[in-house]
């Protein structure tokens, strides 16, 4: 998303830099507990993130911000013998009957913008309220701003997930980049080196000439930086996903370039004659009309593309959730969370409008929705085939466009992956282990979080329902279930605790804070 790069570079850059999103306020007393010298989570059922089946009861011992040990303390239906349990901690969490997972790693985010979501606290708390303990901004905001927030989060001075800072080559004028736009390989290398010196973790590519892109990626690889591309329709005629994988790109986000790698009867997409990329309804409609233009599932070309991706250890980060309104806009517009958690300013941003990116429902008809339904079907089958061949598919939200909300989008993405054919354990692996690999592989380091294992960082999610049985229990709005005792429907689930860096956050309280921010804006305006 946020591909209005052309636009962004030409016109909005000033706006963005002039009106920075407000950094999160300092973490207040009472916001998060810990870290503790010794904390024990008792009697939980563990989903470790590797793809292993759930098992429990286990006691999980955490020292400061690290997982110390995971101790099996019994079998289901048999009382736990207290003798076999690890020693008492300074903090004890009774998680009997609850499920523990690694914190979710959301590798495609933007924090906000003025005026739609002017305070970083809002997005951070929505994320943390949905179990997200790491975000990768692509970008999260202006370079220095992100570096500052990244540091504050690392020190737990603010309530926020860990932040990984990816930036767009050529950006950063407000942070000291004086080299202008990036149009040559040399300039690309210069920018990457500069960004690296600033602490930037990787690059986000929208639209670069092939040789410039290759240089940028190469320089990233030399410096242990990551790379992800949204191959904008403006450049995809020159570099599709296959080309990008062969160039050494680490991750592909969205679908751009994927279908183009599989065209049957065209090279460049055969756009309608009145196509104008700046008309977003056309732009997003034409995406969907690719669904039947490609070599079909299981064809030689299809399988060969999968092999190529595999060979390059290419990670696909689809962000299906970002486009979900395209197949049923009424559904997204009226979704349960809209009234409670969406700021009026953000709701206004979503409303059909030719100027706001992603608000392209100018005349969104049955035709567009049907095309998107078909597109999803084919796209999903590719993702599932890639996963089945051993490829990694990650989870992210790209929220705050197209009726898509921070945090909520991650859970939607999980549901969509299940729809694509992923078992919930494969889905969770995509949101944890594989997403963590997307961050650490370019650094040439083993993962530091992303699975529940001794010595890794204590980034965890606790929920009192089984997410494997039903991913919907992870939504902040919970899941409506009939209570047969009362005959009434209740909302159950919702993440209970999000633990980041050994600090325990009450996820429901975070969402309450968000609700308060929404209320405040409603009353203020």
């Amino acid at each position: 998303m946020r591909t209005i790069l052309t636009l962004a570079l030409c016109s909005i850059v000033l706006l963005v830099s002039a009106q920075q999103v407000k950094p999160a306020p300092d973490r207040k007393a009472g916001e998060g507990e810990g870290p503790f010298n010794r904390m024990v989570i008792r009697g939980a059922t563990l989903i470790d993130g590797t793809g292993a089946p759930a098992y429990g009861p286990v006691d999980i011992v955490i020292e400061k911000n690290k997982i110390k040990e995971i101790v099996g303390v019994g079998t289901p239906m048999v009382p736990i013998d207290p003798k076999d349990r690890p020693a008492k901690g300074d903090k004890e969490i009774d998680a009997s009957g609850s499920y523990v997972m690694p914190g979710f790693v959301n590798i495609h985010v933007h924090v906000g913008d003025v005026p739609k979501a002017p305070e970083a606290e809002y997005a951070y708390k929505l994320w943390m309220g949905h179990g997200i303990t790491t975000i990768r901004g692509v970008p999260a905001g202006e370079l220095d701003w992100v570096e500052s927030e990244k540091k504050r989060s690392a020190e737990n001075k603010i309530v926020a997930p860990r932040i990984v800072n990816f930036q767009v080559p050529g950006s950063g004028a407000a942070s000291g980049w004086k080299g202008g736009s990036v149009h040559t390989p040399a300039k690309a290398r210069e920018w990457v080196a500069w960004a690296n010196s600033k602490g930037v973790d990787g690059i986000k590519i929208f639209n670069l000439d092939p040789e410039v892109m290759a240089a940028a990626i190469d320089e990233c690889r030399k410096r242990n930086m990551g790379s992800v591309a949204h191959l904008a329709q403006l450049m995809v005629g020159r570099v599709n996903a296959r080309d990008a994988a062969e160039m050494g790109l680490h991750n592909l986000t969205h679908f751009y370039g994927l279908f183009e790698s599989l065209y049957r009867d065209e090279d460049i997409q055969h756009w309608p004659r009145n196509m104008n990329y700046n008309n977003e309804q056309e732009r997003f409609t034409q995406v969907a009309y690719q669904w039947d233009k490609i070599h079909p599932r299981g064809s030689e070309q299809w399988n060969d593309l999968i092999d190529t991706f595999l060979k390059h250890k290419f990670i696909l980060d689809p962000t299906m959730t970002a486009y979900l309104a395209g197949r049923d806009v009424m559904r997204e517009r009226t979704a349960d969370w809209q009234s409670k958690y969406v700021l009026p300013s953000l709701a206004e941003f979503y409303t059909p409008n030719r100027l706001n990116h992603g608000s392209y429902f100018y005349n969104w008809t049955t035709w567009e929705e049907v095309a998107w339904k078909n597109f999803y079907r084919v796209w999903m089958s590719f993702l599932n085939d890639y996963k089945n061949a051993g490829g990694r598919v990650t989870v992210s939200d790209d929220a705050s466009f197209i009726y898509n909300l921070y945090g909520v989008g991650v859970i939607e993405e999980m549901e969509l992956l299940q729809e694509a054919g992923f078992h919930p354990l494969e889905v969770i692996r995509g949101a944890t282990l594989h997403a963590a690999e997307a961050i650490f592989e370019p650094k040439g380091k083993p993962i530091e979080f992303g699975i529940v294992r001794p010595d890794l960082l204590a980034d965890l999610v606790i929920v009192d329902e089984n997410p494997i049985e039903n991913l919907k229990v992870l939504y902040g709005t919970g899941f409506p279930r009939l209570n047969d005792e009362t005959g009434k429907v209740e909302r159950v689930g919702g993440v209970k605790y999000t633990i980041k860096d050994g600090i325990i956050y009450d996820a429901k309280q975070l969402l309450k804070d968000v609700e308060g921010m929404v209320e405040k804006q409603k009353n203020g305006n």
Partner: protein
Amino acid sequence: MKHLIIIIALIVPVLVKAQMIGAPDRKSGEGEGPFDRLIIRGVTMIDGTGGPPTGPVDIVVEKNKIVDIKTVGVPHIPIDPAKRPQLGKGNTKEIDATGKYLMPGLIDLHVHTGGVPKAPEAEYTYKLWMANGITTVRGVPTGELEWSLNEKARSASNKIVAPRIISFHRPGSGEEWKNRKILTPADAKEWVQYAKKKGVDGLKLGSYRPEIMKALLDEANSLGMGSTAHLAQSGVAQMNALDAARLGLTGMTHFYGLFESMYENHDVQPWPVDMNYNDEQHRFGMVARQWDMVVPGGEKWNALLEEFLKLDYFINPTMTIYSAGRDVMAARNADWHKKYTLPTQMDFYEPSRLSHGAYWFDWTTEDEVAWKKFYQVWMRFLNDYKNRGGKVTLGSDSGFIYQLYGFGTVLELEMLQEAGFHPLEVVRAATMHSAEEIFYPLKKPIEYGVIREGLIADMIIVDENPLQNFKVLYGTGAVKLNDQTGKPERVGGVEYTIKDGIVYDAKALLKDVENMVNKQKAERPADTKVSIDQNKE
């Protein structure tokens, strides 16, 4: 749907019978006409046969019949008034429909009217139907036998504001059969004769055992009555869609018995061991789990299509009624509920083990995913059937499962398009083919369902192109950005529904519905619980 038959038969029949309030007499101002001569001018016509839109045409209606369809020009050139049909004198009316679209009224072949407590007044349902462009409904049944026949007659003489009513009934219904059961083929034949005499148009069947099914269908066919069947899971093992087609069933409704007719590796569905049909989450959850038990494009699949075709079998899928299964939040939050759904109806939709179709006891991602898969396979079958020349028709079955009368019917149009039907094929399904499903068993040519001289004037006018966007037929309209103001607006919504030559202001009908909803809201005790968390502002 509504085939808690067993339950209904045991517990609620009295309730259903006694508590359906017929529509009030049509008041002055409700509908204009019929006219000695009515001319709809300058319209673009979608005729219902599959022909492309054509216009401008002037359509002349005399009393309740279309008498002339005259092409009066070509696009972008002013119409020469001299060449237009003249209005003449007397009781006449002209409608300027320049730039608008006209098509046959929708024919919804699968409806129930509601009833106490969810929607006690037929007026509510009728007006929702008419406002969403429906000019004929086939009740399967609309309500209790005598009541429905009475309403049918009142609608036929336009004493009430209602679509035409085709009255189908379940074997064994009717006053005189209150204390009888159909135990033998002879009983079955006797009931069909009885129903025919009462004026019943056709049979709504379940999955009866073969000899009863045969007797019912033989008799119905010999008497020129139609038949449709919901081949309930409880009996489908001995009566699937193909078995029923071979016995002479006019058409099937829903999907029941369809997948069962082409299982690859099963005969009876391999139910889970704890399956209980009366647990509706089981029942509806297990429907979807059939999606990978058949092979699209496989030998059995193609053979079934061929045999259905040979038997002139109609398929009336009512995809809309199960659509909440693939996304219950979307259905629960649909735009129309706030304004047009009675609180009592909303209550009925909410998860409950007692209300039929309220099976969201613990409806998970996995259930929704299974339904998404099921729809993909089902839709492919319907599209394949259409492509081979088979007739797929329009039905909604609204009033259950978060589907609202009228709105659910328009949703079915969208779902047919999703299945691969071109909008013109969708319109044909909803008009001409649905009319054929009514008239085919009567061995008569259609009397409506196509815009053609000599046919009855049942049609709708809308100021947007429904082929471009079926959403414009929803009473709530479609969202469209106005580039003059930069703001999104709601456009469309049927403007006029013309039934039997009488012109109804569709938006006024919707207003009436809105008032009924507001009235009930106002009259409800303040502490009445309204829905899980919907109908909230």
